[in-house]
């Protein structure tokens, strides 16, 4: 064990020997588990806001100009604000906090067998900055002019000049909130990498780390390496907005395209930043419930590194028709299509893991498998958009919307439910209701497909994004296309209604569910070797690790799992 951890342990022991008061236990905690839960709950609340926004603007598209129940009239300015902030919230305030910061905080120390993060105070500060960023974002909806409505990519000059966007403080607060959020994740990221590299339990070699932890670490490395240019860009954009510089204004010698390069240099790795944690969590879930060793642990790991590396050189595929030199597009077509190579290999390994298994369809497993099925569609449709000539037609159309919702919805929402249902017994010491869990799964998964499959067709028909009323366009006002819009909106409403099943199940199980044993899923990784919920400090004695995390159904053993910390028989 490294010195850093020892130091932290000492500090913790001296400080937390006595029972902590409520304030220090839940509001200002140093314990990684509570901080993780703070992130998860904040993320869930933000997900409710993001979902509500989606409801409001989908209703406007299906019933243009009518009063939306529980919202009111959606005018064009409001529509822009809703789509912009729906995107921003779902990526920066749901996907990242829940999957990376939330579950990262919760599971990394438990899975690598240490008592806490290496820098607990940094961890707490990171959450507090994150909370501030969420509050700043919410504040931005209520300032004069309303929230920012220039799309989540915030292309200048629209985002930099108040006369163009008509949301003077809305844009600035939005930008400030995003910047604060990055600061928070930079702090958290340092913590995750250092903890995983330094504080692993004795005996845990690099190749014994569960894929869920590995992928969060890779995601954080990608984030930290890519976010620099965007922070520089955000500062320039902020100065353009507030003190009248012209980094992105052509009239003052700036270039609007510069922002797009800075933004997408971050923005594309960001896709893999949110993808990898879910991919890792799903790897752990399918191995547990198929009772199988992960097919090609090293291959999966190396493909993740390859994907991450490649993701830094594909960004301009968001700009094929943005006015860049058309010859440059060819290079980015090659790199973009090449990214399918590691990802296809990773997907094949996941599917091969199922071969010869003994597959048990529990709720977490359903979410894990649902992720693979949905992400497959999202993945293959990406090939169309990576091909620049087809992208000429599909760029900024509903085809793009359908494509990235087939990646982001599985990643964010399905991945979140997979992780929540899988670790719920560990987090709260109670089991969730399986029947309600399955109803919730099918009630989410089927409407999800009914919602986004029609959008592919609307994209084929030439429907562009961010338009608040398609009836203004005669080619798009056709009855059959409008029926598709109404169908998609109705599916969304059904899907949102089924979330109440989850909320009910979540809270009732938290207080009245069946008591969970230490290891309800008979899984191998270290977090299942301690009581549920784990006590402060996690492990009574630090565990020793003797093998990798995926030793299921080993021949010659009576039980079909073999915990990482079980000493081998002499």
């Amino acid at each position, binding site marked *: 064990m490294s010195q850093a951890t020892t130091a932290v342990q000492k500090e913790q022991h001296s400080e937390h020997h006595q029972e902590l008061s409520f304030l220090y236990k839940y509001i200002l905690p140093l314990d990684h588990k509570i901080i993780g839960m703070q992130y998860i709950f904040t993320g869930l609340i933000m997900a409710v806001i993001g979902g509500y926004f989606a409801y409001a603007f989908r209703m406007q598209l299906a019933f243009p100009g009518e009063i939306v129940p529980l919202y009111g009239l959606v005018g064009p300015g409001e529509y822009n604000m809703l789509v912009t902030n729906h995107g921003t919230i779902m990526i920066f305030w749901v996907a990242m906090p829940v999957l990376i910061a939330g579950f990262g905080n919760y599971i990394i120390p438990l899975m690598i067998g240490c008592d806490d993060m290496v820098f607990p105070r940094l961890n707490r500060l990171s959450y507090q900055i994150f909370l501030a960023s969420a509050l700043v974002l919410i504040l931005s909806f209520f300032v004069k002019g309303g929230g920012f409505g220039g799309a989540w990519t915030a292309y200048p000059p629209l985002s930099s000049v108040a006369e163009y966007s008509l949301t003077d403080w809305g844009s600035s607060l939005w930008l400030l909130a995003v910047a604060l959020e990055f600061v928070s994740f930079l702090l958290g990221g340092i913590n995750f990498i250092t903890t995983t590299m330094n504080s692993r339990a004795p005996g845990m070699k690099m190749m014994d780390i569960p894929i869920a932890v590995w992928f969060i670490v890779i995601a954080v490395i990608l984030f930290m390496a890519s976010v620099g240019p965007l922070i520089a860009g955000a500062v320039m954009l902020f100065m353009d907005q507030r003190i009248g510089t012209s980094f992105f204004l052509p009239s003052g010698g700036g270039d609007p395209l510069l922002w797009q390069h800075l933004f997408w240099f971050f923005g594309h790795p960001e896709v893999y930043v949110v993808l990898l944690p879910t991919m890792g969590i799903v790897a752990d879930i399918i191995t547990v419930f198929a009772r199988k060793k992960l097919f090609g642990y090293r291959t999966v790991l190396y493909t993740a590194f390859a994907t991450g590396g490649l993701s830094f050189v594909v960004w301009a595929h968001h700009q094929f028709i943005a006015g860049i030199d058309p010859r440059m597009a060819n290079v980015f077509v090659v790199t973009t299509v090449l990214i399918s190579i590691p990802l296809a290999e990773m997907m094949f390994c996941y599917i091969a893991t199922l071969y010869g298994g003994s597959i048990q369809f529990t709720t977490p497993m359903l979410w894990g498998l649902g992720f693979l099925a949905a992400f497959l569609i999202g993945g293959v449709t990406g090939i169309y958009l990576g091909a620049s000539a087809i992208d000429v037609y599909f760029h900024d159309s509903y085809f793009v919307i359908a494509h990235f919702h087939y990646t982001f919805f599985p990643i964010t929402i399905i991945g979140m439910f997979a992780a929540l249902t899988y670790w719920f017994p560990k987090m709260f010491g109670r089991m969730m209701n399986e029947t309600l869990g399955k109803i919730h799964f099918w009630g989410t998964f089927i409407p999800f497909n009914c919602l986004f499959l029609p959008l592919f067709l609307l994209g*084929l028909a030439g429907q562009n994004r961010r338009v608040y009323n398609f009836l203004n366009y005669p080619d798009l006002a056709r009855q059959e296309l409008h029926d598709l819009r109404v169908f998609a909106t109705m599916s969304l409403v059904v899907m949102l209604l089924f979330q109440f099943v989850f909320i009910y199940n979540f809270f009732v199980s938290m207080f009245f569910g069946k008591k969970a044993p230490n290891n309800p899923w008979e899984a191998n990784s270290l977090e299942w070797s301690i009581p549920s919920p784990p006590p402060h400090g996690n492990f009574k004695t630090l565990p020793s690790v003797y093998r990798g995390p995926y030793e299921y159904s080993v021949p010659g053993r009576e039980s079909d799992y073999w915990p990482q910390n079980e000493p081998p028989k002499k």
Partner: protein
Amino acid sequence: MIEFFIENASSFASDIDNLFEVVTWIIGFWFFVTFGTFVYLLIRFRRKKGVKAQYVAGEKHSETKWTHYPHYAVIAFDVAIIALNIFVWVDIKQTLPPRDNMIRVIGQQWSWTFVHAGPDGELDTSDDIATANDLHVKVDNTYHFELQSRDVLHNFSVPAFRLRQDAVPGRTINGWFKPTKTGTYDLQCAEMCGYGHGIMGAAITVHTEANFNETMDQIKKGTYESHYQKRRGTKTEAPSKISKENSKSTFTDVLASIF
């Protein structure tokens, strides 16, 4: 496949449609093979009493070939897609074929100005004809366009032509298209440009030679009735469920007061 949803009315539209179709076959094949295997494995290896799972590490060659061989095939298909794509892309965006006519397209919040080159086929001469939100072109003429923006980013998008190009303030972007079918089509702004982005539409009409000259004469004389207005007036309320009052939101009123 795209023609099923929307007409293809320009020379390169069918190139894009064909490429789309080829890619669809490739992707469809992979999707059904992968998804089929996935579902088969789920059914075949569901939990049965007394059957223990196998121990497969996936590190021996005899095992990894099951993921590696399909993987080599993926690489081959990738190369094919890249090659086909670059051919089409070079044609439609990277090279400009010889022109028959010129137009200038100017986007601003939230309307389009089109400058038609007039009979001499050159811009910035005295016979140029400018219109707002109405673009008129001749069928089977290769047009070069100069795309400009007065304020923020816009996007000159004509779905029926499979044409799309961002307009960047401070720059002139050149491109081309060649309409092949007469008719009136939607022209949309496809890049978020602020409050009125959703109604920044226009109409593009592809005329025969005679028709085109007649329309240009009408514009010069001032007897011209905007195709864009006419089209919106007749077709906007098409879906039966939406009553006329409702589809006219407060937004149109706001815009009316701006312009």
